């Protein structure tokens, strides 16, 4: 896995602050300097968690936790097939707990890692638990197999 500084990615993610109508701003680590910048989450995502207490609490607690305390940030989540996502971001981390289907907080299995995906304009569009790679890195399966372009933090 290639490691590079955020400056050398060729990506322009904009200034520290972001705001857009119908989107909620939330703090995240800026891979340039390790300080905070703002990322956005569509408010329409909140209602999609209806009837799933675990999903609502995952968005409410796990997502901001990993955005603020990632173990790694990768850039370039998908390329080819007419797609240009070379500047999209993946924040990877290990929250203190996950949520069971009934919404109860439970310990995280050691073989899982949480990922939050952002577009190049720093909009969160996806988040999920995945199994970790068998290489002991603590990163998701396939992280070093062309899945991401580079590690920037």
């Amino acid at each position: 896995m290639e490691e590079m500084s955020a400056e050398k990615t060729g990506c322009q993610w904009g200034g520290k602050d972001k705001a857009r109508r119908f989107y909620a701003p939330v703090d995240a680590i800026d891979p340039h300097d390790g300080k905070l910048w703002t990322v956005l989450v569509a408010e329409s995502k909140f209602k999609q968690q209806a009837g799933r207490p675990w999903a609502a609490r995952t968005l409410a607690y796990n997502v901001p936790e990993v955005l603020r305390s990632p173990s790694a940030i990768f850039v370039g989540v998908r390329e080819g097939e007419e797609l240009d996502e070379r500047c999209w971001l993946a924040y990877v981390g290990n929250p203190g707990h996950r949520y069971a289907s009934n919404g109860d907080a439970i310990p995280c299995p050691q073989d899982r890692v949480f990922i939050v995906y952002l577009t190049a304009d720093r909009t969160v569009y996806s988040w999920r638990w995945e199994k970790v790679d068998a290489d002991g890195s603590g990163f998701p399966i396939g992280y070093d197999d062309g899945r991401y372009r580079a590690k920037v933090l």
Partner: protein
Amino acid sequence: MNAEEFAQLVLAQSDLEKDFAPFSVYDHDGDCIEFIAKPDAYFAERVDGIVTVYYSEESNEMIGAQIKGIKSLMRQSPGLSIEVHDGPVRLHFLLRARIWREDPKLAKISVIKYKKLISLAEASDAKVDLHSLVA
């Protein structure tokens, strides 16, 4: 907005008491479809650069998926726009359009997982509104 303020906003707007209903929705930001057939907590497994499937933490059965690159799929399968104009598109149509582009002899994609996902989408009668992509 700090993490606690964000959490309160999310929980205030997520109706936790509402009965779950399966859904599939197009996300303009990520150019992807989120399909959830059951309310269980899940973990994700990336099938390829386009499809990620969700497995129940309780039963280990497939209960949903994320399908990416919808704009690209529409460009590569222009006939899909006919379905889109008529209203919400059955999700299994989109998945079949994706799989039919591949040569099964080359096995670039996991045909078995695609077939399971197609079955799940059919059984759930999953439909998604893509009208904004052809308007």
